[in-house]
């Protein structure tokens, strides 16, 4: 890391008082109240010094050649990943579970780099499911601190590489500091255009549909819509994946040989091609990713017709 970035002492978002937000609106509070205040001075410095201009001028997808067999015109716009197998990876090596998660973060960094190189526009990762809250407290706390650390460490890379970070899920369950960090990072990177990383934390497909339904119910209560107006398009607008131009993954990869979706992005996966990789997530590298993409490019997609 050439330099480190620090957020200003006053977070960009003021946390709302506990009673000012009904529970069901809280997941969206950060988008409701994101102020238009200028970035802190160190961020300004990072952007100009490191060359937001450079990133803007650079067209990596044109200059990079793809591996043999991969066709640029058939690259998926949005790839989703269920990063499974970190704990098993650690157990197989007689390492503590936390080593598995740390190795998983490294693996994610590599895949993000590859996505940027090969012209994939959006990568969604299932970092922490709503169901994962039932894991041992020590493990959950470690994961929360790992997310915080990783996001802080990589902030410079996000700016340098023109990467937009979006976070989906019920953020109210996260530690306050992590919530603020994520919200600030989302706000600060929202105009980055080269690549978007969507991190699903405290997320599930059921949760996404329920929160969309709650928002639609509120709109109906306020007389903005009739319940009979509710259609696919209105639902799509309220789902948390409305943060991206490509809300439907073209390809879902799940590692570690499990053949299930595990409550990730149910609505959005309607016509997604599924690829189940045997390797554990920390071992999922460029070769495995290439295999998945080659398999995807051979599939004939009919979108239900």
């Amino acid at each position, binding site marked *: 890391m050439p330099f480190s970035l620090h957020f200003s002492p006053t977070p960009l978002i003021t946390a709302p008082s506990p*009673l*000012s*937000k*009904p*529970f*069901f*609106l809280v997941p*969206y509070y950060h*988008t*409701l*109240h994101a102020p238009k205040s200028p970035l802190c001075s160190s961020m300004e410095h990072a952007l100009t010094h490191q060359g937001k201009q450079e990133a803007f001028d650079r067209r990596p997808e044109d200059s990079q050649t793809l591996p043999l067999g991969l066709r640029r015109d058939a690259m998926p716009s949005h790839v989703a990943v269920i990063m499974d197998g970190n704990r098993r990876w650690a157990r197989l090596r007689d390492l503590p579970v936390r080593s598995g998660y740390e190795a998983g973060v490294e693996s994610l960094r590599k895949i993000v780099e590859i996505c940027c190189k090969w012209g994939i526009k959006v990568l969604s990762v299932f970092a922490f499911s709503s169901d994962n809250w*039932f*894991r*041992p407290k020590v493990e959950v706390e470690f994961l929360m601190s790992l997310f915080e650390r990783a996001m802080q460490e990589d902030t410079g890379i996000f700016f340098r590489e023109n990467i937009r970070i979006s976070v989906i899920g019920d953020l109210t369950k996260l530690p306050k500091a992590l919530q603020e960090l994520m919200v600030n990072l989302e706000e600060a990177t929202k105009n980055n255009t080269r690549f978007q990383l969507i991190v699903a934390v405290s997320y*599930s*497909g*059921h949760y996404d*549909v*329920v929160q*969309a*339904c*709650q*928002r*639609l*119910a*509120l*709109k*109906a*209560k*306020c*007389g*903005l*819509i*009739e*319940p*009979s107006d*509710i*259609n*696919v398009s209105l*639902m799509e607008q309220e789902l948390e994946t409305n943060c991206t131009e490509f809300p439907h993954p073209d390809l879902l990869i799940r590692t570690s040989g499990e*053949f*299930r*979706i*595990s*409550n990730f992005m*149910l*609505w959005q*996966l*309607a*016509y*997604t*091609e*599924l*690829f*189940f990789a045997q390797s554990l997530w920390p071992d999922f590298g460029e070769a495995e990713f290439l295999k998945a993409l080659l398999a995807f490019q051979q*599939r004939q*997609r009919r*979108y*239900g*017709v």
Partner: protein
Amino acid sequence: MVTSVPNKVGNYSSTGNGVHKLFFDDITNFLRRCLFRVLSVGPIPTHLAFIMDGNRRYAKKQNLKEGEGHKAGYLALMSLLRYCYELGIKYVTIYAFSIENFKRRPDEVQSLMDLMLEKMEALLLEESIVNQYGIRVCFIGNLRLLSEPVRAAAEKVMKVTSNNSKAMLLVCVAYTASNEIVHAVEGSCKEKEKEFRLCNLNNNVMDDVKEGEKVNGMVVHDIQDFYEDTSVESQGLKQGKGCNGTPYHACESVESNWDQVLTSKASKSGEVSEGFRNLRQEDPVIKLVDIEKHMYMAVAPDPDMLVRSSGESRLSNFLLWQTSNCQLYSPAALWPEIGLSQLAWAILKFQQSHSYLEKKMKQL
């Protein structure tokens, strides 16, 4: 042509070409029963779902006329259903016709509708599978999209079999999961709207919000008054005035208007309406169960396993809500080629993942 007719014991003897065939069929039935006994040592799924993919490719592969692939697929389905119910699988769901399939060529759609009508009527016959196994049939989907004869036949089958209780066959027709979810969301919203209208809005107060307190720079008022001030239209968005008389763009954030509606209070009394007491508490307005009870598939538990034939690995908008934690299996065989071996393999895969899941739960 050999026809199979179930006898009293449930074996399928041929009224065909003599003693040899009878003997052969008895042996295969015996072997099948042995196989099922072995499989039954482990857990058997309660609910299997099938995406019947590959009928058209099968017809092409076998140089059959178009439409013959679907007929072959129907025969494969009947055999598979018999195997499932013999094995003790209580619920079987099949993806017969997607809403997206209406985009196919009109003659193909018509021939599929004709085939469905013919097979629905066959289900009502005494010797049909529904009577043999006591199956209740449910047609799942937006049945209003079907032509009148097909919809009427579906409703008749559902009515006639409604008292059967040994097993259930759910036939998804004119179905997509997104249509099902939208329907359930609409149902939940309508239900909540009715509840909301029963509440008395005029005396709503938030206990802990002080009178005259500012929320987002605006002085809070009674919800009703505030809402009348905001002039937010349901369709378009126009410039309105905030309650301080300050012009604002209603479209800046529709959510922020609701936010203020919800957090504002009556300035007069200290009463809280039941509706707003509910909104104010931790419980969300709509819960998962509220949506689930409006799903077409609420009549059955979630599938334990989803099997898609022909080797394609995608959900194609089938049971997206219900398959969140379901085991997925994609045998390469085209649907008319699906048989006992694929079913047995699916059961074994289910049993393998079932024991893995149980181990995982114990670790937690």
